[in-house]
């Protein structure tokens, strides 16, 4: 069974294949997401974050961060 994602008019068909049925997930299903602010979590489902997770972030030292690089605004007003 092959995975696929295809747009069919006003429908997005999402077929989950069986090739990924290998290995084990890295945590149990009941583990809370760590990037969820505490206050609303008990009453509201939060969206998944399809971004790099912050849970593995080292404790940063703000002084050691490289300075931000700005793309530079175009002053073409």
């Amino acid at each position, binding site marked *: 069974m092959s995975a696929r994602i295809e747009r069919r008019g006003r*429908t997005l068909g*999402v077929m989950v294949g069986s090739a990924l049925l290998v290995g084990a997930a890295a945590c149990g299903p009941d583990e809370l997401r760590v990037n969820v602010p505490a206050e609303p979590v008990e009453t509201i489902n939060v969206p998944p974050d399809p971004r790099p997770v912050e849970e593995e972030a080292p404790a940063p030292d703000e002084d050691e961060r490289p300075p931000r690089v700005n793309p530079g605004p175009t002053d073409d007003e």
Partner: protein
Amino acid sequence: MSGPSNEARGDAEALLTPTTTKLGSMHRNQVHRAPWPDFDAFDVARYDVELRRHAAWHWISRAQAEHGSVHQFSAVTHALTEARAPVELLGALARLLTDEVRHVELCARAAKAFYPEGDAAFFRWRTPRAPWPDAPSVDADRREESELRLRGWAARAILTACALGETLSEPMLEAIVLVATDPLPRACAEQILKDERFHGRFGFEALAVLVPTLDDAERDALQTQLSRALAGFERTTCGKVRVEDLAGRELEITAPEPGAPPNLGTLTEEEFAAIFYATLEARIFPALEPLGLDPMRAWAERGRFPAARREASAEARATTAD
């Protein structure tokens, strides 16, 4: 700036606060894209408060993820500049920065429009944290090796943030555009979707430039990062849904018929999980193989990377901007 502190106003509001006339003009010229959504036109009275609060939570969470992308891509730009990477790579990457600023504003303004009752605590803003160690520093006496390590670091970041993260975002936003019943969330998602297509493609193109310049140790580190990132994304994207729950099934995410319950641009956990698993197998893994990576081995080994156990979570450690 003067006036109430960020904490008193709510951090999201502080981020959206106007600065000067000229800065505002520069920002809009650079970041806004026509047609810019009319946030003031959102009719709060049409929707139940719990629906709006739920949607606002989704959108403010996405805003913070987008803010994290600004933070990450600026660091990657910095590292690749120190590595003296080709200007075409830097130029394309610079666009990602601008796009992510646009996404922060779109998502934060949508959240505020949906739930104007939200207090400062609801819209509290986390300090962005990179999900990887800082880039290695340059040793002037060993510049070639330093640049190799910087390229390896950047490749791992781009693999995670762009090739995986941005490529996963694309069908998720496509689904959000489909299910949204209100023009405001649909317009915001459509704008972001246009950019995510570019960002995912950038990831694979950038890796095609960087990976051939890496040595065996850096390529091994990239393969390991793939496994670690897959574990992390599965945890944060799929919640309680596992691939075993969905394998062999097709979900149809359909635009609502007239009269259907309102949706302000939110998906269910099962829909997010299905998109995650299907996108990995159908779109991402086939694109990683030509780079010399072994995505199926990385996937099979993802159990080696459980969530970090800490006395305090990353969120609890994070402080709000001040």
